[in-house]
């Protein structure tokens, strides 16, 4: 405590802002009605159980894991659709890059069809497209993958609801309390404002936070376009004055 040259210790996680995050019960997204807890969540400060997390090493990741154009394709073939790079950084609420985060992503093919037994949309499967990928962030929290732009698709909710084109993300940071699943939307998609799942977000600012801009700086000429998508995980206090006993 007295050696000022030592770095501060990580403290507890910053409480999740429930006025910003979507509520559980959102009746226009019908499935939430029977799947949302009705009792209030019980709040308590994070403990070691939430401030720790498994370690996913870079060795885990194969060379094609972050290339959805090739990772399910037959040799010499590739997935059909507009070729894009999706890249950005995983940051925490204090603005620092989250190194070593496991980022998993999944999406429909260019026609809006998922490779899944329970999927019933008539759009064709692409034999060269599986629809999933993963990567681990670099030292500055950066990540990148290559894929095809997914198509919009209809889904049973209202009589004629369509999902905007989107990519699902699962994020694993340094503490289990940071665990997050979200979706990325594409700049300019007219379906965004019509979507009941986007509609669970509480503000335009929250919608904007999940909408990736076209990024011509990272687009590869004559090859693929690029979209930039940063994601933010909960931050952890850094302090000499954490209210806990030494050694914990």
């Amino acid at each position, binding site marked *: 405590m007295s050696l000022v040259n030592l770095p501060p210790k990580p403290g507890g*996680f910053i409480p*999740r802002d*429930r006025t*910003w995050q*979507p509520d*559980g019960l959102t009746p226009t*997204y019908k*499935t*939430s*009605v*029977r*799947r*949302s*807890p009705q*009792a209030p*969540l*019980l709040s*308590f400060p994070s*403990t*070691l*159980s*939430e*401030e*720790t*997390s*498994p*370690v*996913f090493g870079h060795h885990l990741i*194969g060379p094609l*894991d972050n290339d959805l154009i090739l990772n*399910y394709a037959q040799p010499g073939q590739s997935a059909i659709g507009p070729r894009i790079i999706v890249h950005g950084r995983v940051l925490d609420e*204090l*603005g620092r890059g989250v190194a070593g985060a496991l980022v*998993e*992503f999944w999406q429909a093919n260019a026609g809006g069809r998922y*490779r*899944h*037994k329970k*999927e019933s949309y008539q759009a064709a499967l692409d034999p060269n497209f*599986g629809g*999933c990928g993963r990567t681990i962030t670099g030292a500055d929290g950066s990540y990148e993958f290559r894929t095809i732009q997914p198509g919009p698709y209809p889904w049973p909710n209202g009589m004629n609801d369509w999902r905007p084109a989107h990519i*699902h993300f*699962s*994020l694993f940071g*340094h503490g289990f*309390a940071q*665990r*997050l*699943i*979200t979706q990325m939307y594409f700049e300019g998609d007219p379906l965004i404002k019509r979507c009941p799942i986007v509609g669970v*977000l509480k503000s335009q600012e929250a919608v904007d*936070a*999940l909408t990736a801009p076209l990024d011509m700086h990272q687009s590869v000429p004559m090859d693929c376009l690029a979209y930039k998508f940063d994601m*933010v*995980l*909960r*931050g952890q206090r850094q302090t000499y004055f954490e209210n*806990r*006993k030494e050694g*914990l």
Partner: protein
Amino acid sequence: MVQKLHDYLRESPSQTAGPYVHIGCTPNFTGIDIYGGDLGTSMKTGPVQGTEITIKGTVFDGMGAPLRDAMIEIWQPDAAGLFPSANETRGTPDPNFTGWGRSPGDMETGEFTFDTVKPGAVPYPDGRMQAPHITAWIVARGINIGLHTRIYFDDEQVANAADPVLSRIEHQNRVPTLLAKKEAAGLYRFDIHLQGPAETIFFDI
């Protein structure tokens, strides 16, 4: 006017995992052969220390129907109460235990199964010991933001009675929703009810 907290960012808003979370997180389970296997299917990489246990359970919606499109993850310390985490500074955890499991549930019934070890006790921030528990996280179609809960054990009455989290619960008649019930030697059941009279306690941690 005051200075702006402009360096700070807002957490990304959560969105539902949707009906196809298994494609992204357990693709091999859905028939997409990739990565050489799904992450989190085994929590042991060799002989482990402590008592090996199995936890089974099902996630139910407010109508009592089982969820078959959920994903459940658990995270826990080893039998000595040490986490296999980069953030563990109290000692060296069991090298053959990952502490982390991920289950898509059974394709037909939705029942999840974790083969793990009985966790050791871990201190609360103020130094008091918590009862042995496992952290659980549930996502699915219709769940807008992942649900955190804890799995305690119904055969740990003394430790449970002294647990700082369990003792914060105002309606103590709901505490049993956090207890895995011993069904046989080494076998526990932990069903999760998203709604209803037996609604599981979920946490904002």
